């Protein structure tokens, strides 16, 4: 009886280990794909969609260097970026081995059969707490992530791929984040008058914001100076 129980437990461990190993293969493939990129400079157009901000589209350049240096610069102007969200990209998540990947099922997302993995950091010093990845196992591409950070809340990042899919680099990336209320006293803005109160619907929408970057060109592995960060 004891031998039988031990055998079953051992078998369960083996199945679990094999599954995990199999799951990690998918994440590992993504990691390997991203690891081919040492640095890049990407040009694109950024759109800011936060309900309390009126901003036009702006040309941006995104600089990346391994392992986790990233900087978004607007072409001569003021840029608005989610606090802490931009630094947590696919490259910065997977370029270290300091995580455990746990398979969390499958999902159909935008017509694609994706596998869902939860990444848990093994290093306490990392700024993220947990991240969920929606991965296409065939293309080894991540289409969506949801990351919870220690200090800057949660971020949802969705990606679309095009010409640079071979490198695992998206053609479009959307950062979704929670926003806090914005209000300045009229005494400071000197705006006295008949302002309409914000509707409940708009106030609800106030809590969500997105920043969308559509990339037109990547210059990959040509070297990026540290002065850009």
């Amino acid at each position, binding site marked *: 009886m004891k031998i039988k129980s031990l055998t079953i437990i051992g078998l369960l461990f083996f199945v679990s280990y094999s599954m995990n190993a199999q799951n990690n293969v998918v994440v590992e493939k993504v990691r390997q794909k991203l690891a081919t990129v040492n640095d890049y400079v990407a040009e694109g157009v950024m759109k800011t969609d936060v309900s309390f901000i009126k*901003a036009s589209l702006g040309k941006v350049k995104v600089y990346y260097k391994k392992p986790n240096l990233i900087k978004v610069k607007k072409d001569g102007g003021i840029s608005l970026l989610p606090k802490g969200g931009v630094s947590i990209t696919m490259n910065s998540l997977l370029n270290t081995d300091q995580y455990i990947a746990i398979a969390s099922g499958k999902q159909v997302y935008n017509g694609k059969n994706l596998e869902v993995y939860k990444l848990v950091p093994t290093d306490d010093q990392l700024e993220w707490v947990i991240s969920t990845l929606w991965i296409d196992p065939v293309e080894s591409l991540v289409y969506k992530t949801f990351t919870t950070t220690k200090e800057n809340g949660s971020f949802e990042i969705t990606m679309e791929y095009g010409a640079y899919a071979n490198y695992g680099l998206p053609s479009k990336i959307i950062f979704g984040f*929670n926003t806090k209320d*914005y209000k300045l006293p009229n005494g400071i803005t000197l705006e006295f008058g008949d302002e309409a109160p914000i509707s409940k619907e708009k106030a609800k929408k106030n809590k969500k914001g997105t920043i969308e970057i559509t990339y037109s060109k990547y210059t990959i592995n040509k070297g990026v100076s540290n002065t850009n960060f």
Partner: protein
Amino acid sequence: MWSIIQIELYKIYKRPRTYIAFGAIAALIWVIQMGLKIDGEAYAAFLMKDINNTLIVDGKVLNGYLICYILLQLLLVHVPLLVALIAADMLSGEANLGTLRLLFTTPYSRTQWVLAKFIAASIYTILLLIWLAALALFLSMYIFGTDDLFLMKSNYVVLIETQDVFWRYVGAFVFASFSLLTVTALGFLMSSLANNSIGPIVATISAIVFFTILSTLNIPLFNLVKPYLFTTHMNNWKEFFDIQVTENNEAITGSILNIQKIKTSLLVLSIHIVLFVGASILIMKKKDVLS
């Protein structure tokens, strides 16, 4: 007509109080610019407290365009008081000195004299505004440089691209000229009613303060009269700095959110100018000059 306008301009030029307004504006702007140059980052951080909770704002927020907006917000409320110092003295000052009778015995009609005085006072007002623009806009651009205008309003933020800002200031200053000319015309009207200098100046300033308070109080009873008060419309130069957005919340470069509001305000202010000056002419034509 031009010769009597020149005479009136010469009188304004020779009056010491003319330069009080220029000096006061220069001093105020200089103090604010210095304050913001030295400790502007702390001021910007205070304004952006709510935004910084969520977003990282990268770029030169405290640039010349924002400084100019801050200055105009503060000064365009008070410049009318400085305009009143000259405009409200144009007719009553002459009456006080006893020279009004002398003027009206010249070959020029009373209407011509009143119009000449109003045009001279208007030129003074416009010069004051140009002085304000030169210091608030161009000097700020020189000291702080230029970048996108990151404008923090009470309930939302407007980010206007650098190349889309300057024309808005041109529009705002043209609009402000209508606002200040309305004050000039009001001062002129008060001036036509009195025979001393102090009374019309105090009356003009009091009227501006009184109507400004009515315009800013959000009480339903006052809301009925607000659209007809010139003080309600004087601050609408700010409309040049609000921008339309698409359904996707993309700001439309080169657009103005509420252009109709600007047009309406310009119309109301123009009507006030015509009414005030017209009333001044009528009063002066019928006035029995005894001083």
